[in-house]
C-alpha cells in the first residue's frame, strides 16, 4: 500500500486543492478539451460568435456543476445511492408516460422553466448504484451479486432504450457494466457473455431494433448503398476526415464543413470538422488530451481509499472513454451512427454538464480521502 494513509502521524497541512475539492491536473486536461471545443465550434458553426458564446455559457455551467459535484463525499453518495436510483427510475418511467417529444423521441420532462432529461442523470446514478451495491459484498463479486447488478442495470437501460435513445442506453449500460467489471466479475462470466452476444444481437435485430436503427446499421455496413439518405452522413464525414490529410486544411478552411456538406457539424460530427481542418496531427493531439484525462482519472481511482470509490471513479472514467470511442468510431466509419456526442467538445450543454458532474465526483473522491493525523 503506497497510499498516503500509511504515513501515520504526519500532520500535513491540507493542500488548497483538497479544501476546494478539485484536482488541478485533471482540471487542466478538461480545460484543454473545452478550449478545443470553442475553437472548433466557431469554425463548425460558420464563424458564428453567438454560438460560441452559448457554448462558453455551457462550459461555465458545467464547471459550476463539477464544482458542486466535487463537494459530495463518497460516503454521502453511498448513503443516497439507493434513493437516487429509485427517483431516477421513477423519472424515466414518468418520461415515457408524459415526456416531451423532441426530435421524435421522448427524452425530456417539461418542468415549466426548463426541460430535464432524466436519462442524463442516470449516466451518473447507475454507476453510483452499482458500485454501492457490488462493493457492499466482499470482492471479487460473486456470480449471484453480478446477476442482481445486471438486473439493476437492465431496468434503466431498457427504459431509456424505449424512449427511444440507443446512444444514451449504450452509455448508461456501459457505466453499469464497467462497475461490475472493475468489481472483479469473473472472467468466465465475461467470456460467456461475449459468446452469447451473437444470438442476442440476432434477437435484438429481429425483435427490438426500431426501423431507423436498422437502417443505421445497414448503412453502416454499406454506406454507399444509400448515398442520399442515411449513408450520406458517413460518406461526407469520411470525405471530410480523409481530405484533411496529415496537417489539415487549416482553421476555418475546411471545405466540407464550411460549405455545409457535413451534417450536424457542430454536434455529433464535430470530430470530422476537427480532422478536416487540423489533420491527423490535430487528431493525435486531441486524443492525447483524452488519454491524459483518462490516465489521471484511473490514477485517482487506484488511489481511492475504499472499493466503492475505486469502482465508481473507474466506471465513470471508462464510460467517458466509451463516449469518445463510439463518437470517433462512428464518424470515421468504424461503428454505426448512434447519436453520441464527442465528449466535452461537441456543442451542447446537457451531456457536458453530466460529464463534468462525473469528473466532479471523481475529484471529490480524490480530495475527500481521510488521512491519519
Amino acid at each position: 500500500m503506497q497510499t498516503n494513509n500509511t504515513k501515520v502521524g504526519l500532520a500535513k497541512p491540507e493542500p488548497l486543492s483538497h479544501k476546494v475539492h478539485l484536482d488541478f491536473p485533471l482540471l487542466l486536461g478538461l480545460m484543454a478539451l473545452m478550449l478545443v471545443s470553442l475553437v472548433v465550434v466557431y469554425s463548425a458553426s460558420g464563424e458564428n460568435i453567438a454560438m460560441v458564446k452559448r457554448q462558453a455559457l455551457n462550459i461555465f455551467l458545467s464547471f459550476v456543476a463539477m464544482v458542486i459535484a466535487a463537494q459530495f463525499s463518497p460516503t454521502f453518495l453511498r448513503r443516497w445511492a439507493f434513493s437516487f436510483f429509485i427517483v431516477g427510475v421513477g423519472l424515466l418511467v414518468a418520461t415515457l408516460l408524459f415526456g416531451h417529444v423532441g426530435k421524435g423521441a421522448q427524452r425530456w420532462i417539461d418542468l415549466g422553466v426548463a426541460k430535464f432529461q432524466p436519462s442524463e442523470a442516470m449516466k451518473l446514478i447507475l454507476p453510483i448504484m452499482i458500485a454501492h451495491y457490488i462493493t457492499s459484498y466482499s470482492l471479487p463479486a460473486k456470480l449471484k451479486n453480478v446477476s442482481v447488478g445486471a438486473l439493476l442495470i437492465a431496468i434503466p437501460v431498457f427504459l431509456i432504450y424505449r424512449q427511444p435513445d440507443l446512444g444514451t442506453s449504450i452509455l448508461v449500460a456501459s457505466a453499469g457494466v464497467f462497475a461490475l467489471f472493475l468489481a472483479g466479475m469473473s472472467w468466465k462470466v465475461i467470456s460467456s457473455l461475449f459468446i452469447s452476444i451473437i444470438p442476442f444481437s440476432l434477437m435484438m435485430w429481429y425483435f427490438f431494433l426500431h426501423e431507423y436503427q436498422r437502417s443505421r446499421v445497414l448503412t453502416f455496413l454499406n454506406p454507399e448503398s444509400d448515398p442520399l439518405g442515411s449513408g450520406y452522413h458517413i460518406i461526407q464525414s469520411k470525405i471530410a476526415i480523409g481530405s484533411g490529410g496529415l496537417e489539415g486544411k487549416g482553421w476555418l478552411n475546411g471545405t466540407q464543413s464550411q460549405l455545409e456538406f457535413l451534417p450536424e457539424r457542430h454536434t455529433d460530427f464535430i470530430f470530422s470538422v476537427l480532422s478536416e481542418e487540423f489533420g491527423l496531427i490535430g487528431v493525435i493531439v486531441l486524443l492525447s488530451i483524452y488519454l491524459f484525462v483518462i490516465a489521471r482519472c484511473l490514477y485517482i481511482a487506484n488511489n481511492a481509499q475504499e472499493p466503492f470509490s475505486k469502482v465508481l471513479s473507474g466506471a465513470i472514467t471508462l464510460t467517458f472513454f466509451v463516449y469518445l470511442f463510439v463518437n470517433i468510431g462512428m464518424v470515421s466509419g468504424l461503428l454505426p451512427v448512434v447519436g453520441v456526442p464527442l465528449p466535452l467538445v461537441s456543442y451542447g450543454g446537457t451531456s457536458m454538464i453530466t460529464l463534468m458532474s462525473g469528473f466532479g465526483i471523481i475529484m471529490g473522491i480524490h480530495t475527500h480521502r481521510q488521512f491519519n493525523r
Partner: protein
Amino acid sequence: MFSRNRPPIRNPAAENALFKRRAIIAFAGVIVLLFLLISNLYNIQVNSYETYKTQANGNRIKVIPIAPNRGLIYDRNGIVLAENKPNYSLELIPEEIKNLPDTINKIAAILELTADEKDNFLSTVNKQRRFKSITLKSRLTPTEVAQISVYLHALPGVSIEARLRRFYPYGESLTHTLGYVARLNKKDQEKITRDGEDAIYKATRDIGRLGIEKYYQKLLHGLPGYKEIEVNNRGRVVRVLNEVLPIHGEDLYLNLDIRLQEKAYKELAGRRGAVVAVDPNNGAVLAMVSSPSYDPNLFVHGISRDNYKKLLSKDKPLINRATMGTYPPASTIKQLMGLAALEAHVIDEHTTISDPGWYKLPNVERKFRDHLAWGHGVVDIFRAMKKSCDTYFYDVANKLGIDRISEFMDKFGFGHYSGIDIHEEKRAIMPSRQWKRDRHNQPWYAGDTISLGIGQSYWTTTPIQLVDATAIVAASGKRFTPQILGASLGNNGLLQLPANDKPSIVLTNDAHWGIVQKGMHQVVNSPGGTAYRVFKGAKYVSAGKTGTAQLISIAEDEEYDADKINERHRDNAMYVGYAPFDNPQIAITVVVENAGGGGSRAAPLARKIFDVYLNDKPKTKQPEKIVTNIAMAQSDREVKNANE
C-alpha cells in the same frame, strides 16, 4: 438485497490488488482501442488522402432550390382576388461590408429606418452565414427605390431585391373566406418536417394561414425547381450548371361572386354579423362575409403588435362568423320544424290551432309566450309561418318530442360540420337527450322541447349550416357540400370541381316540400307576411323566413323593450331565403347581431344581395379547356410524375 450480514472478513489488500489488476486491464484496453482509432484515421487521412481530397474538391456543386410562384385566386367572373406583386426590399450581405454600423447609418440617412427594422436586421446577422443576404427594409416605395439606387455604387454589399408578395385587392371583405399568407414560422416548419415536405418548401417564404389560402395551400403552392451551381471553396457562386424550373402553383377560380361579397360587406358595415349565399343546385358558395373584418394585407408582411392588439377587441374581428359564429336559429327553422311535423304525421296542411298568445304544458304553471301578446287567433301551418306564430310551433315541437326533432334536424346537417372547404368551422349544437346528459348531466325536460319549436333553448347553428338547410328546402331535398372553390387552372388546364353531392333527403311524401315552400313563399309574397314589405317590387319571386333570436330570457310577464336593454343583449336579426321561387339560383342566410327584428333588419340585406345576383348578370369569362372530372385529371398528373 442489501444484506446487513456481510461476510465478516474482507481482505482490503486483496481487493485493492484486484481493482488494480482490473484497472490496468481496462487501461490497456483503452490504449488498444485508441490505437485502433488512430490506425483507422491514419488509413483514411494518410493512405486514402488523395482519394478523399479529390472527392472533397468535387464537392463543389450545390443545389439551390427555386420557389414556385403562388397561384392566383379569382372569383367566379374572373376578377382577381389574390395576386402576387413585386415587392422591393433592401438587402445586405454582411461579408461584403467592412463596417456594418457605418453602412446602416449611411442608409438611414437616405431612407427612414425604424428601430424595429434595425433590431430585426442585427439579430439576424448573428444567426446567418455571413455571405447570405439579409433583409434590412422591405416594402420599399418606388421613391425609396429611386433614392437608394443613386447611392448603391457607394454601398458595397447593399442591393435591392424584387420578390413577389401576396396582395389582396379587395382587402377586408374577403379576409375570412380567402384567408391570407404569412411568413413561414417555426411551427409551420415543424409541421412541414413532420409531413416530410421539407423538399417542397425549401425555397418558400410564405404559407397560407387561413381560409382558402390555407385549405388549398398545396394546390396554390406548386413545386419548387432548383439550380445546380458551382461554388468556390468559400461558398460563392462560380457558375450555374443546370436549372430546372419550378412548377408554379395553380390558379384557383372560386365560386364567390365578388359583387355579392362586397355588397354584403358594405351592408354589414359597422355591425357584427354574417351573410352566406350558396347556389342550391350545386352547393357553390356565392358569398361568405363576416363582419367586422380586418385587412389581410397586414399579415402578409408580418403584423405589428399594435395592429394585432386592435384585432383582439370584443367585436372579435378574427372570428369567421359565417362558419364559427354559433347563433340560436330562432324562427328561421320553423319551416323545418313544420316539415318534421308533417313527416311524423303530427300535423297536416289543414291542422289548425287556436293561439291565445301563449302556450302551456298541462300541469305546468309556466306560460310560453308568443311574440304577439294577444295571439294570432286560428292558425294553420301557412299562417303560422307567414306570421311566424310561436304558439303553433310550441305545440308542434311538443307533439314531436325531442327525439324526433333532433333526429330530423340531424339530417339537415345541424350539429355537424358542413364540410365547407376552409378549416375554420364549428359544429354548433343540435341538442338531444344524450347531449344534455353528457354536457349538463341533466335529464331532458319537456319545457326544453317547447323552446326548440322556435329555435331557442340549447339549439345553436352557424350561418353556413342555416344556408345549407335552406338550400336543401329550396332544392326539395337535394344536398350538396358547400364549396368555395369552383375550378383550378394548372398545367393540366382548367379543372372544374364537380359539385359534391350527398345523399338526398327523401320524404315520405314529396308534397311536404311543397307545403313548406309555400309557407316560405307566403312570408315574402302574401300581404302581412313578415318579409312582405321588404321584398315588395322585386323583379323576381323569392321565398324566405325571418327570425328574431332572443339572447336573454325575458320573464313571463315582462315586455321586451329594446331601448332598455344593453346593446349586446338585443335580439339578433336573422333571415333565410332563396330566389327565384320556381327555379332557385341562390339561397341565403343573413345574421345581424343585436340589430333587432329579422324582418326589418336582416331581410333587406338579403333582398339587396338577390337584386345584385339576379338582376344584373355579369359577363362570365369562361376559360377554354374544361376537364370536368378533377379526380381523373389528378390521376393523370400522378402518372405523369411517375414517368418523369
